[in-house]
């Protein structure tokens, strides 16, 4: 019964993730910790497996649309995977409250970036038509690599610490500071998540922090959800999806905060 519930949970987080360009991990870690009673470190390790699945499934679709900048992605991956491996190793030194507090803050920040990006997407709507799934990408040259690498290091560190993809950090930095078109930034961030999460997931796996019986049903659901979502993404208007996602994130953030407060008061 729990297994089926996990498949459904994975499916919806994969679908939402692919539709809005945000990894599913940001939803999965807190849901596993708060609603399935899994210790936060195992929740993080387990959600990393789902995060890799999302990345592999949806970036295979993005790659075929040629919206992924592999060279830029792999350069920044040097920083993300380094940061992720380091924090995955150090996560034992963070106590549960610090991790939950950091997570609540990150959820809040992610919700804000989603709303902000939606405004930008509307402006770009006219320049990116996609009747047959092909997109015209204006020529660009990525700028400010040191800044991009620095931000990637932070995104990777958070990924290894919280079991997330880190898209809400990488996408705005690539788009705003490195002059990469938004569609390329989103696809490239998604592409980078797989290697980043693998770097930290290996550390979690070795430590026994990946619960195989939870990860398998989640990954099965996430795979189906994110393939479906990635195919629907260019066609669907995501306003309602976006509000739904933001609502879930605010709820989880609040839930984590209440959980923390209860811990302090008790």
């Amino acid at each position, binding site marked *: 019964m729990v*297994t089926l519930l996990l*498949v459904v949970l994975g499916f919806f987080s994969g679908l939402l993730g692919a539709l809005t360009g945000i990894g599913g991990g940001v939803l999965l870690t807190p849901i596993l910790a708060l609603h399935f009673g899994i210790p936060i470190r195992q929740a993080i390790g387990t959600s990393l*497996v789902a995060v*890799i*699945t999302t*990345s*592999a*499934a949806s*970036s*295979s679709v993005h*790659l*075929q649309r*040629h*919206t*992924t*900048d*592999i*060279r830029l992605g*792999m*350069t920044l*991956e*040097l920083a993300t*995977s*380094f940061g*992720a*491996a380091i924090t*995955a*190793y150090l996560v034992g030194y963070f106590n549960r409250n610090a991790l939950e507090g950091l997570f609540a803050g990150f959820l809040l920040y992610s919700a804000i970036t989603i709303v902000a990006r939606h405004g930008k997407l509307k402006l770009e709507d006219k320049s990116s038509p996609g009747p047959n799934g092909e997109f015209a*990408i204006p*020529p*660009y040259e990525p700028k400010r690599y040191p800044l991009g690498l620095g931000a990637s290091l932070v995104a990777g560190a958070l990924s290894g610490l919280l079991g997330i993809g880190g898209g809400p950090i990488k996408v705005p930095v690539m788009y705003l500071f490195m002059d990469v078109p938004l569609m*390329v930034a989103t696809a490239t961030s998604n592409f980078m998540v*797989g*290697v980043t*999460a*693998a*770097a*930290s*997931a*290996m*550390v*979690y*796996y*070795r*430590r*026994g922090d*990946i619960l*195989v*019986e939870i*990860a*398998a*049903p989640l*990954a*099965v659901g996430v*795979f*189906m959800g994110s393939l479906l979502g990635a195919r629907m993404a260019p066609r669907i208007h995501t306003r309602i999806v976006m509000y739904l996602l933001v609502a879930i994130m605010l709820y989880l953030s609040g839930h984590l905060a209440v959980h923390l407060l209860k811990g302090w008061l008790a």
Partner: protein
Amino acid sequence: MSQVREPEFDRAVAMVLRIGAFSCFFVMLAGLIDGLFIAGHISRDIERLGVLLMLATPVVRVIVACFLFFREKDYKYGWISLGLLVILTLGGVFGIGEH
């Protein structure tokens, strides 16, 4: 731009990710079905295999990209891919013996 110039490269990398994700999906599905409907303890091992396949997929993707970059004589990115492989290997090695 690179993504327009080399559709072949994109296709090869996409293929690796697709094979990894699909094989992981079917292995894990087999594990789930086994666990739900068939008595026994083999399902955990099947699911574990699925998890390991998923962890290996990004590594294989880096190896393939590395090979393609060197074949295209794009040494800068070939070395970047090799550096990435070193980091990934260290991540795996550092975890050993940690409990």
